[in-house]
């Protein structure tokens, strides 16, 4: 695993988030959520800081990070694309949508495009099953997405 050196203010940011949750081990998932929302991903060095602050083992932290598909150890693209693979979205064709994103962007799930603009991930249900299949790009939600819509969605972000 390549070692990265965390900037001092990044370490401080992580420590502050842990402190918001009173450095409680039981708040690990919330801490991971907050840290990922700030940093975009959870590399090993970040997990080490969190483990130390919450007085738990880094193996435990890694166990939680690898259990939940939401957490990632790979840096996300500028525009993280998530395709819902929940039951409702899946039966209405989200797999074809996912395949179309993979084809157009030439990346696999969990990877980012070379220019760092996009990354693709799968998630399980955003609670908008009536709109299935659902795709999110950053905070924006797209409903009833068909493979033919994929090109248009990508184009929205391409030139930004």
């Amino acid at each position, binding site marked *: *695993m390549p070692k990265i050196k965390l900037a001092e203010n990044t370490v401080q940011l992580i420590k502050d988030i842990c402190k918001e949750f009173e450095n409680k081990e039981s708040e690990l998932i919330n801490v991971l959520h907050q840290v990922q929302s700030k940093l975009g991903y959870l590399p*090993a060095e970040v*997990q080490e800081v969190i483990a130390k602050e919450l007085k*738990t*083992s*880094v*193996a*435990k*932290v*890694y*166990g939680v990070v*690898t*259990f*939940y*598909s939401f957490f990632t150890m790979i840096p996300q693209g500028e525009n993280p694309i998530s395709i819902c693979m929940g039951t409702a979205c899946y039966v209405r064709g989200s797999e074809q949508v996912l395949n179309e994103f993979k084809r157009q962007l030439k990346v696999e799930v969990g990877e980012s495009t070379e220019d760092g603009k996009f990354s693709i991930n799968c998630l399980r249900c955003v609670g908008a099953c009536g709109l299935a299949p659902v795709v999110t790009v950053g905070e924006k939600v797209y409903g009833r997405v068909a493979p033919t819509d994929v090109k248009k969605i990508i184009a929205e972000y391409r030139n930004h």
Partner: protein
Amino acid sequence: MDIVNLTIDNKPVVVKSGTTILEAASGVGMHIPTLCHMKLDDLNIENKPGGCRICVVEVEGRRNLAPACCTDVSEGMKINTHSMRVINARRTVMELILSDHPFDCLICAKSGNCELQDLAHNLGIREIHYKGEQSTYREDTSPAIIREVDKCIMCRRCETMCNEVQTVGVLSAINRGFESVVSPAFEMNLDHSVCTYCGQCVAVCPTGALTEVDETGKVIRALSDPTKTVIVQTAPAVRAALGEEFGMEAGSLVTGKMVAALRRLGFDHVFDTDFAADLTIMEEGTELLNRLGKHLAGDKDVKLPILTSCCPAWVKFFEHQFPEMKDIPSTARSPQQMFGAIAKTYFADQLGIKREDLVVVSIMPCVAKKYECGRDEFKTNDNPDVDHAITTRELAALIKLSNIEFKSLPNEDFDNPLGESTGAGVIFGTTGGVIEAAVRTAYEIHTKKELPRLDFDELRGMEGIREATIDFDGLPIKIGIAHGLGNARKLLEDIQAGKSEFHAIEIMSCPGGCIGGGGQPYHHGDAGILKKRQAALYQEDKNKTLRKSHENPHIIELYEKFLGEPMSEKAHHLLHTEYFDRT
């Protein structure tokens, strides 16, 4: 206290409320099979994830089957532990577990000692109806422990030992579903982690997923090399457990048979680590008195309490987790390493051979000893003081391999000069024993009076943390004892916070001390076995004529002829060590 009435297999049973079905059933002689569940009674250790579902029973009026290990009894419950439905469910569960398990039982290191194998046999599994993907996880080999994760059934016992009992925190379940395995963080290998090699994960693993590195092959090779003189040392705890491997009652003392077996295996000299334990007491006891003397004289820089340093897993633990305290433990090497250092100098000189032509093998109740003897500071010109450390289990395997009928062997005595020991050396194998041995010697050196008694019951027992004050003829010496690294951590945190009033603390990594070591015959969850081994060691101590380390005539001779006196420059060079910050 509430009482609950219920029936188990039509037998009326009365138990305390809060009792599990598993415990209630065992009280009436029904042993419900378990796999993930493990409870070590006297040690307060329990693994109860309720994950494997092997222990399911039928409860009248309940829709689904209940896992007996984590379902409490309730008033009027009617339980059937072996109905058709229960047996079918257990077989299905077992078949599902086996559907993803490698079929290499015949050549697996755990064959014959495997709880999964036994259970599959007891359940009469003859066919596996489920075919599917097999996990193919890489093997991870460290200096002491091998992880073959394909054989893991996710019982989580190792996680309980590593996290809750030892607070080492190396192992955790990672990933999800079919991909899930027990692993160090970031799937790094054990030898890159903060693993102490205590081997408690190995001691409780129900399958062959965690085993020790097998060095019996190297020992056989050394024994058959005519250019080498091969000598052996046996740790105190081995003699109280080896018999179990040959079907003898737990707690059988097999010292004499063990010596006879080692001689028949072809060792040129059969020596005893107990001798080196006596030597450890001379050095560590003197160091304690030196530090104490300075402390009493008002020296503010002197570090107290002094901590024992015999246990290699404990040494690695504080090097990783408390490096700022690395000048507190005694600098005395462990008995294994003291033996090796004396053997390859003093004894090799006596034989008139080079250290390279002398092979030192040690029989240890421990897997961390394999790691310890490979540490660089215990080598001279790349030649280790101890060449190979094998476990009690590996010795049993060697004896079986060599067609030796262990139970009918005569009792034989150790060779001299490195085989003579006192009762103080013997009790090193149990929690509390090292400090009791130290007290016996330190008292007499300090007070210059004969001890009025030799048995210090206040230092004995199985409680995780114990403390006692011993009167050194008017000087009260406060002693702490911890076994299990989680308990050690508590005492260390007290020292860090300046709250510790102890003068000396004994620490052993394994619950029970070396008798419960990771290299001992598997206890399969029966903590009573450890108590029997402990009793055996105290009995061996009682049987000895000499019970104080400083009275060992060969120790006295060693100082007269070779070392000078305890803590001399030569003793310092050969018998003491330094510790490293491993963060």
